[in-house]
């Protein structure tokens, strides 16, 4: 595969043709904040936290879905990027009801840890306080729409790792929501295999194992890695 050479944060690196900026940066030991990205599943650029500056292009581009090109000059950290990342995080918090203090994922939440690592000390926007429900009809798992950031990790693992296609998105804009099958209670889904991959993939407290209370919902991502490794490398390493 042809290699491309590019510059990220002043560092000369080479990356395979077809690699994303995020792949290239990760290989070079440069960390870009991500939220909707999940190793082993294709990227959709939903959360906009991995936005980077590319010289010669005015708009910011998501590192997870932008392919590398020969001679690209990329900045992954700048005043402008920090401003937009913080804004994005604040909008995510303002859009739904993220009450960390009483959330199952408190202390194990990627949204929460990104917020503090990127210096978010408060939300400047008005909270919307929308009314969303909790789907507790499944025997093993629950879905709390209040905590959902629509990263679509659950949809992607359900379709492309498990192959069940239970999880989908309905609606538009801030009225979008994750649904099961034809927008029915999760517990009545014919296609759900109860594998739990969606729960393991969720970055926040939106999907949880029943019985978990405040701060108890810890994810075990190794289960997903196991399947991805098995598929891609034909190695069944537990």
């Amino acid at each position, binding site marked *: 595969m042809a290699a491309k050479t590019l510059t990220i944060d002043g560092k000369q690196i080479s990356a395979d043709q077809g690699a994303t900026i995020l792949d290239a940066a990760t290989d070079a030991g440069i960390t870009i904040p991500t939220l909707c990205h999940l190793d082993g599943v294709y990227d959709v650029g939903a959360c906009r936290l991995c936005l980077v500056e590319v010289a010669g292009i005015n708009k910011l581009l998501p590192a997870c879905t932008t392919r590398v090109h020969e001679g690209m000059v990329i900045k992954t950290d700048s005043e402008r990027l920090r401003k937009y990342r913080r804004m994005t995080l604040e909008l995510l918090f303002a859009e739904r*009801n993220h009450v*960390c*203090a009483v959330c199952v994922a408190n202390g194990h939440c990627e949204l*929460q840890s990104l917020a*503090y690592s990127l210096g978010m000390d*408060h939300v400047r926007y008005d*909270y919307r306080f*929308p*009314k969303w429900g909790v789907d507790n009809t499944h025997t093993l798992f629950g879905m709390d729409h209040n905590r959902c950031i629509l990263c679509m990790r659950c949809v992607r693992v359900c379709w492309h790792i498990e192959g069940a296609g239970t999880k989908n998105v309905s609606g538009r804009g801030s009225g979008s929501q994750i649904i099961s099958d034809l927008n029915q209670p999760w517990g009545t889904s014919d296609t759900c295999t109860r594998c739990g991959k969606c729960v393991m993939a969720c970055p926040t407290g939106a999907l949880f194992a029943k019985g978990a209370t405040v701060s108890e919902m810890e994810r075990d991502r190794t289960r997903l890695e196991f399947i991805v490794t098995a598929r891609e490398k034909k190695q069944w390493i537990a």
Partner: protein
Amino acid sequence: MDRLRVATVWLGGCSGCHMSFLDLDEFLIDLAGMIDLVYSPVIDVKEYPEEVDVCLIEGAVCNEDNLEILRRIRARTRLLVSFGDCAVTANVPAIRNQLGLRNDESVLQRAYVEGAQSNPGVPREPGIVPPLLPQVLPAHQAVHIDYFLPGCPPPADRIRTVLSQLLRGEEPHLEGEQLKFG
């Protein structure tokens, strides 16, 4: 140097942030030597004084009394610190906001009428029981807030960090896990 005139106030919160403040343990003794505590739920002062240097605000703005006192505090204080998640995000008290506008009436109806075992009726005592605001607000949506000290409650070492910075005359600055909500 003049001692820093410090106040703390308890608005719509559970007092957990003040409990965490008391968790400062022996630092409280050092603190007592360095500041004048001029107003707080832990001392017996009824009226918020003038010319206060720093006030820690615990709790969300839930009722008219909270709003009135917060405005008075702003007018009489140099630096306001949102102290804990209820002041910073409105947190648990704001869960009632999910019920939509005018939820101040429906929550009282639910608690004092539907849930009452005897004497159902919403308490109305003008001048004694402050009416609820239609929406619960984080402190910075009611008045200008200078610094934020999140956490539910903020752990004692986080409070100590901010107080120490203020006492040294520095701008309070927290970073990384010190900014964790919840």
